[in-house]
């Protein structure tokens, strides 16, 4: 292990965020040219990571970290091996050109600064994601990529489509993120590892754990949503609502690959199991085909590319899942190739859109003269995408066919899938790269000409990189492909494929692919129509399903909430008291806390009369047929209670109860003079039955509780103490009052606070009144001097 570059990596993790914070201010000052300044940041990152390539290529791993949340065993730690370093290089490298490209593409946009800020934040998040070591740090950055992409997709927020796509991406990837979190925590549980590097050292622990299945499903939930695997693929094409630099960066080269990264990262500890090798290829294959077919239908350049991206991601997942050495090597090579050519093609599509004013492939043609540089870059990228030599894509495609072959029926199926998928991508790639440039000139909304270097620099460099990487393939392999593939496999691998084709099955398969692809390319118009017809016949897709689900949720929520929180006090009260009754009764019955049959009391005649008085008073309150009678009757039960207190040695209580009961009646009478008086409380029979039941159960519950409590022998220690010291230390003979003002004076302090607050609140109620009976729409601002009496 290597811990060199510790502090630099630490700085690298924060640098993009610092730049993001500064971007708006800088942009305000420098305009779009700020791109040159801001691009220094990813460039520096690239240089930093490039400096580590040698170390990593020699088989070492660069790690480092700081304490972060030790209470939760969360470190702020990073881990650079072949896999993460390659990703980091792609992110920072492509990121450099994306920043530049953005400067050209959004020149003059009023929120350019904000855009830079978002895209730099995203860059920081993505970079953090791939080099994180600790699980939670990984998760945090994972979620940050979702959130920043939400902001970027919704950048053009005044359009509903943008907002919809942003929400869609947030929800779908958010859902995956939560699955991922759960998955990581399950893995933590299963293996005890809290970091990726720690996990990789556990070998078979996870595979052999009973939690493997759960972890697998959850991790796949994260990976598939992020990498737009069927049936979660729909958000990605919709995300094309984002400005093109975003599509080029997030939705081709970086973020969508996070899912693939996750699968690759976990392959050494989760792969090579039957489910892994079944589920991943299956979903990957389906995604490849779905992506390919849907791409054919499109005529929008970006959408065509988006669907091929879906297809490519399917291919990568399929390969990763396949699990063989060649499959992993193929996945690694294809991932690198795809990042380069897809990034370039998206930028090309953006340039065309920017310069010609449309991205509709059917309305474009003959731009090669006006935009030669762009055309060159597009052509090179398309060739790579088509898997033709001498580009890196060719190496990848050859390796794919090596990996799949026709070894078994299982692999034969996937070989066919791969051929079909690659052919479709071939066709689309060339459609994007050639159609707008070749043929007769078509009149476009804008008069097209070559864009500024800020725009074409990116595609050119990426296209060049595709060539260069292929030309020096042994070096590329040694520095990037082999360390990465080894990391994915969890064991040293070797990659030897080069531009010099060896005659064999892979080459034949490539030729078949090219032939098929060319055929599709030639008949693209027909195919498009036919696919469109098929899709129209199906008439439904997960994209529409998303809307339906969402509306369903909102409607359902509205209905359900209206049912429960229905605004009716009666419902609230009945339910509440029903639960209170159960709270008394269930434990008494269920937990064996039922009281024994209580001893019957011996009472004097006048005690009986006083108790009876209370009951009579209550009955009178219940049966009173007007409210004033009820209030007067209320006085009876109140007096009876006071007399009970007096009879059982509580003069203070009786005293207070008399006063309070009387004052209650007084206030009732004062208030009643303002109420219109009508007879009331005739409840329908059913309701009455329910109310009586609930009320009786509550009453019985409390009665039984008191039976139970009073049958226990009582510990009078507190009162003995109070009595003992009431006079000799606390200077008072009235023990109750001594308790109130001394032993438990704090209670009384709270109590008078209540009294004062009640007085104040009542005063506010009585005095602060709306002068007129109008509903004020503006509750924040109150009219002065509403008070009538000072």
């Amino acid at each position: 292990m290597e811990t060199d570059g510790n502090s630099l990596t630490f700085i690298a993790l924060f640098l993009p965020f610092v730049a993001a914070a500064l971007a708006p201010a800088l942009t305000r000052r420098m305009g779009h040219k700020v791109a040159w300044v801001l691009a220094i940041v990813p460039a520096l990152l690239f240089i930093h990571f490039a400096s580590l390539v040698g170390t990593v290529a020699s088989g070492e791993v660069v790690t480092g970290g700081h304490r972060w949340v030790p209470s939760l065993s969360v470190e702020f730690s990073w881990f650079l091996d072949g896999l993460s370093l390659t990703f980091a290089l792609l992110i920072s490298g492509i990121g450099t050109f994306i920043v530049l490209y953005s400067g050209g593409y959004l020149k003059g946009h009023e929120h350019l600064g904000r855009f830079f800020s978002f895209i730099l934040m995203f860059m920081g998040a993505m970079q953090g994601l791939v080099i994180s070591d600790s699980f939670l740090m990984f998760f945090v950055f994972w979620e940050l990529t979702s959130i920043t992409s939400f902001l970027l997709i919704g950048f053009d927020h005044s359009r509903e489509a943008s907002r919809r796509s942003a929400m869609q991406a947030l929800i779908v990837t958010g859902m995956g993120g939560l699955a991922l979190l759960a998955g990581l925590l399950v893995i933590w549980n299963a293996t005890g590892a809290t970091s990726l590097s720690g996990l990789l050292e556990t070998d078979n622990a996870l595979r052999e754990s009973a939690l493997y299945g759960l972890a697998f499903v959850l991790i796949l939930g994260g990976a598939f949503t992020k990498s737009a695997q069927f049936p979660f693929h729909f958000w990605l094409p919709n995300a094309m609502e984002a400005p093109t630099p975003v599509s080029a960066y997030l939705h081709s080269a970086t973020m969508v690959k996070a899912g693939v990264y996750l699968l690759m990262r976990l392959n050494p500890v989760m792969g090579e199991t039957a489910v892994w090798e079944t589920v991943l290829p299956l979903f990957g294959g389906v995604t490849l085909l779905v992506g390919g077919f849907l791409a054919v239908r499109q005529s929008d350049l970006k959408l065509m590319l988006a669907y091929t991206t879906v297809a490519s991601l399917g291919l990568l997942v399929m390969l990763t899942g396949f699990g063989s050495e060649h499959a992993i090597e193929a996945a690694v090579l294809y991932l690198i190739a795809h990042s380069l050519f897809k990034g370039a093609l998206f930028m090309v599509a953006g340039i065309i859109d920017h310069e010609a004013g449309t991205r509709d492939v059917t309305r474009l043609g003959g731009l090669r003269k006006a935009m030669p540089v762009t055309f060159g870059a597009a052509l090179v990228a398309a060739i790579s995408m088509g898997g033709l030599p001498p580009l890196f894509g060719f190496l990848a495609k050859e390796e794919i066919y090596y990996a799949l072959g026709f070894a078994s029926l299982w692999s034969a199926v996937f070989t066919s899938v791969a051929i079909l998928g690659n052919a479709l991508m071939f066709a689309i790639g060339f459609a994007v790269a050639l159609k707008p440039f070749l043929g007769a000139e078509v009149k476009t909304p804008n008069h097209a000409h070559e864009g500024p270097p800020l725009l074409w620099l990116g595609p050119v460099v990426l296209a060049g990189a595709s060539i260069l990487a292929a030309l020096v393939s042994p070096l590329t392999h040694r520095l990037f492909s082999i360390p990465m593939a080894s990391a994915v496999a969890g064991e040293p691998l070797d990659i030897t494929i080069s531009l010099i084709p060896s005659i064999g099955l892979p080459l034949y398969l490539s030729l078949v692919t090219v032939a098929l692809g060319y055929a599709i390319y030639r008949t693209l118009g027909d195919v498009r129509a036919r696919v469109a017809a098929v899709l129209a016949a199906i008439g439904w897709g997960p994209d529409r399903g998303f809307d339906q689900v969402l509306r369903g949720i909102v409607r359902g929520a509205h209905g359900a909430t209206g049912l429960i929180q229905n605004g009716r006090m009666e419902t609230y009260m009945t339910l509440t008291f029903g639960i209170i009754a159960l709270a008394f009764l269930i434990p008494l019955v269920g937990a064996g806390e039922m009281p024994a049959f209580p001893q019957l009391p011996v009472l004097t005649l006048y005690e009986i009369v006083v108790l009876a008085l209370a009951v009579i008073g209550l009955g009178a309150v219940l049966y009173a047929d007007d409210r004033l009678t009820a209030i007067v009757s209320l006085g009876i039960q109140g007096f009876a209670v006071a007399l009970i207190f007096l009879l059982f040695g509580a003069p203070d209580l009786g005293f207070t109860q008399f006063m309070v009961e009387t004052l209650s009646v007084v206030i009732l009478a004062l208030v009643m003079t303002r109420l219109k008086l009508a007879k009331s409380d005739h409840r329908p029979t059913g309701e009455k039955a329910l109310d009586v039941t609930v009320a009786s159960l509550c009453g019985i519950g409390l009665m039984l509780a008191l039976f139970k409590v009073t049958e226990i022998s009582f510990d009078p220690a507190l009162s003995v103490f109070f009595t003992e010291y009431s006079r000799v230390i606390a200077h008072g003979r009235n023990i109750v009052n001594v308790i109130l003002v001394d032993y438990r004076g704090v209670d009384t302090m709270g109590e008078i606070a209540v009294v004062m607050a009640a007085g104040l609140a009542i005063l506010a109620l009585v005095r602060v009144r709306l002068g007129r009976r109008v509903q004020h729409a503006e509750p924040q601002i109150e009219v002065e001097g509403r008070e009538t009496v000072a």
Partner: protein
Amino acid sequence: MESASNPYGVDISQAMIVERVALADWLLVFPVALPLLAAAILVMLRSRPRLHAPIAIAVIGIVLVSNVALLSRVFDEGPFAMTMGRWLPPFGITFVADILGVLLATTAALVALVCALFGSTSIDLTGRRYGFYPFVLLLMTGVGGSFLTGDIFNLYVWFEVFLISSFGLLILGSERAQLDGAFKYAILNLVATTLFLIATGLLYGVFGTLNMADIALKADDLRDEAPLTMLATLYLVAFGMKAAAFPLHFWLPASYHTPRLVVGALFGGLLTKVGIYALLRTLYLLFPEEGGTLSGVIAVVAVLTMIFGVVGALAQTDIRRIMGFIVISGIGIMMAGLALGDRTGLAGTVLYAVHSMLVMAALYLLVALMRRAGGTYSLLELGGLYRSHPLLAAIALLLVLSAAGLPPGSGLWPKVMLVKSALDGDAGWLAFAILLSGLLTTLALGRVFALAFWRPRADGAAVPATPLDRSGLFALVLIVMPILWIGLYPEPVLAMADAAAASLLDPASYSLLVLPAGGGS
């Protein structure tokens, strides 16, 4: 002093604490005594409402500082107790400064300070004359007292103090909707506190004591003969109602959107959390075994609450009402930790409580400013705020993320802890529910963001960039800072939450702290 207070020659050490009290121990009293005194003085200064805001803000600020000092002392040197009136515990009322109570009290003071600042411009002179600041101070007194007292009946009293002050705040202004909301709020809360009172009466009848530490000591001996499960259930229902747990939550959505929003912020920030706090205390300190019996019920309630809350939020058009339901959803999440009952889960609940106090208050303040910027509370009409008020939008986004438990908000960490705890405890379904509620919260609040901020206004007109009042925005920024801080560097608060959880799981040490002699009775 000694001779004056003891003219009868009684050995005072049998009844009273003889050691002198260090001045630093008074930090334990200030969170209750100072706001109470200030409230009294403001009521005396009724006719000078202009003095109210400065005095109240100053006093709350002092309390906050004193709380922070108390927190750092407790965290460094361990908990301590003070028995009021010098009477030996369990005879006097004991206040206990343990990490759980002090952490929550400190957060509460911060929320109160922010709301007091916010109110200094949003509450007019009539509102002040009729008690806005006294009510805020009394609310703080009640909440602070609840967090610090070690006596169950005293807890009831503090509950009533903050309840009545919440009534006062709720009706301030006397709009029609306020009166309706306040009526439901008041009656249902009265039922809850009365149940609390009845349960406490029964508890006293069983144990003969009110000091929580003393009860905890005695519970084991009485476990066979006393109806402890029933008592635990009664407390669960009473505090569940205060916490607005489903299906005892009705009062909250009926009322929280009706008062001034700064009041909503105070309520959303403080009140329900006191219910959660009380549940933690009763179920883990007083009835650990019975709480275990009830954990299944609590877990089901937790799930229903968190899902119902967020479903309710999705159903609303009025952004104020959305926030009410979001508050409820958070309660469900805290109850999940309560049901799980391991150290991670409890720490998650405590941390979530801190997070929720800050975020819910901030959300209500945000709504107030959104209303001021956008002119309406209706999601059907709001729009265009992203363009007109970018700072507000940024804060809104951060709060949305916090509430949904996403980075870099403060909600992430407690949620991680709770999910971890659920998975550790083989309660995968609980973990699933927590995550699902997080997702739905993202949806509900994400929609608010998309509709109110991103979407242009329906009439197409640009929203004027009305300058928001300074102190309001300042207050919001002030409360957002700790939210972001917890999101990025949760360790200090998390460590405290963890320590609080550890102490909750060790009721014996609490008892030993309060009753060094092992109980006087």
